[in-house]
């Protein structure tokens, strides 16, 4: 197929193409524009050479940038005053989860006023898409997301976040509280 026929195959009539501006004589020579470009890069070079502090680079991990307070990071399960988890194993979050990354096994709660509690609650961090639907779905204010975004592990198994991890991991002490529907 040569170029001519290829051109004809394009749909005609709808959405006219934006006309391409013809190059001016100066632009067609290329050299002038090339020197202008060199000027631009050199201005940046000199400016940044003497103002390195003003560069937008964030020297992670020593410097961290601030994210919004509704940032959707690694999950946390909230606890009641008495230290038990607020989760009642209603499976709302596991049902709405588009990534199917939440696995809950329910058991009977010893407290008469509460019907169920999770025997195990595992979020697969490698499947989670951090959409925050679980937080929206939760009727008991049990699952929140923190502002933690820098979690790396050596093994895939370590990304299976279980109950202890979700409620009592050490980094929670100073992790910023991230996404929850109502910000108190």
């Amino acid at each position: 197929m040569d170029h001519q026929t290829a051109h004809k195959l394009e749909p005609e009539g709808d959405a006219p193409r934006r006309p391409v501006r013809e190059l001016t004589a100066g632009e067609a020579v290329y050299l002038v524009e090339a020197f202008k470009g060199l000027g631009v890069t050199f201005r940046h070079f000199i400016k940044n050479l003497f103002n390195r502090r003003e560069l937008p680079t964030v020297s992670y991990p020593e410097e961290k940038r601030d994210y919004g307070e509704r940032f959707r990071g690694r999950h946390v399960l909230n606890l009641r005053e008495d230290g038990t988890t607020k989760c009642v194993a209603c499976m709302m979050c596991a049902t709405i989860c588009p990534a199917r990354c939440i696995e809950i096994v329910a058991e009977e709660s010893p407290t008469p006023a509460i019907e169920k509690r999770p025997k195990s609650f595992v979020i697969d961090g490698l499947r989670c898409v951090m959409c925050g639907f679980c937080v929206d779905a939760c009727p008991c204010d049990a699952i929140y997301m923190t502002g933690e975004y820098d979690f790396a592990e050596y093994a895939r198994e370590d990304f299976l976040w279980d109950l202890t991890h979700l409620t009592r991991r050490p980094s929670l002490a100073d992790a910023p509280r991230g996404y929850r529907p109502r910000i108190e």
Partner: protein
Amino acid sequence: MMDGIDYLLMAIKVVVVVMAFVSLVPVLVWLERRASALMQDRLGPNRTHVFGFKAFGIIQAVADVAKLLLKEDFVPAKADRLLYAIGPFMVLVPAVVVPIAIPFADSIRLGAREFSFQAANVDGGLLFVFAIASLGVYGLILSGWSSNNKFSMLGAMRSSAQMVSYEISMGLAVVGVLMLFGTYQGVSSFELNHLIRAQGETISIFGLFTLPKWGVFVQPLGFLLFLAASYAETNRLPFDMPEDESALVAGYHTEYGGMKFAVFFMSEYVAMVTASCLVVALFFGGWQVPWAPTDVLRANAPLVARILLAGAGVAAVGTGLLFWHLVTNEIYAYGISPAIRRMTDPIKKIGSIGIGLAGLAMLAAAAFAVPTSMSAQAGQIVAAIAQLGAFVMKLGFFLFLYIWVRWTLPRFRYDQVMRLGWKVMLPLALVNILVTGFVGLAF
């Protein structure tokens, strides 16, 4: 006649020149990374350090080399093992051979012996340089073909087509320079030293001011053509068709890793230095100090020595102050523990004070210690140092230009490269020769 000492001297000079060119590679890599970062509003590598000494990031080059040395020496299945192994060296050898023909200063006479600042005084000079430089394409084709990979092969084909096309414009761009400088004081020669000596005169612009008679002022079009062609010959952006990674993965060295890849990398940078040397030699007067040819420098040796010392002194004081500023206001000391910083900061401070004091000593020497008259021998040496300095400064500018252009101009499309080479640069080079000839006949 050459005797044993001459041969020994030549061997030493070859080693020194090749080592100097190769050791420029890490510096250029560092400059490339840092300059590109600053041009793009980034910081560039600033973490690697040895006992707290980052040397402005140069240590990163050491880390890179260590990484490449420790990598597996991989050979793809069904590759031609022999050609695959010698391919990188077929690229490296021409790149490091060319520098030996480049003169860095006018030759001086020590006693009865003539000492030239040129590793080998090849009679063919310019022809030798072009002959050897064009051998590099064989290495690219061999490595592209032997790695048994479509993209390598395509990269190699492109590179051969591109280098053959641009060699023509490059050769023709030089013809204008040869027409003007090839015959000087009744002698015709291809020697680079000869061409550079011919650029030592000055030309008067309407009697208002004088310009040094450099190639760039009498052959501006030839200069632009040669510069563009040298970018194409060294496969640097905007002409890096052979390794156009958006179209060809990584081009002819797709299958290369570890030290073999590093050899390609090194030869690219050495070729860059060589090409800059050629541009300087042919179009920027080589080792000529502007407005001061060799005999003027030698006649005024005490003054030249004074200026050189003062210049070096000012530079050293400036460097010392800069280092002091950097040590006392270290902005980015991440990755270095406070304990190590407590140990290394005093060393850095003492070092910067030392450099500053050395600069002051040089300034004092320039003011008081330079004798008012010098022997002819000392005069020659002083002139040679001045010329060496001039050459290095010009070379430095062109090396920076290479990096600067790379991070400014986008890559051409392959058909654009070919069109530029055959339909624009070749006719322009021919016109340049014609015009040079007519102007030469008219005057």
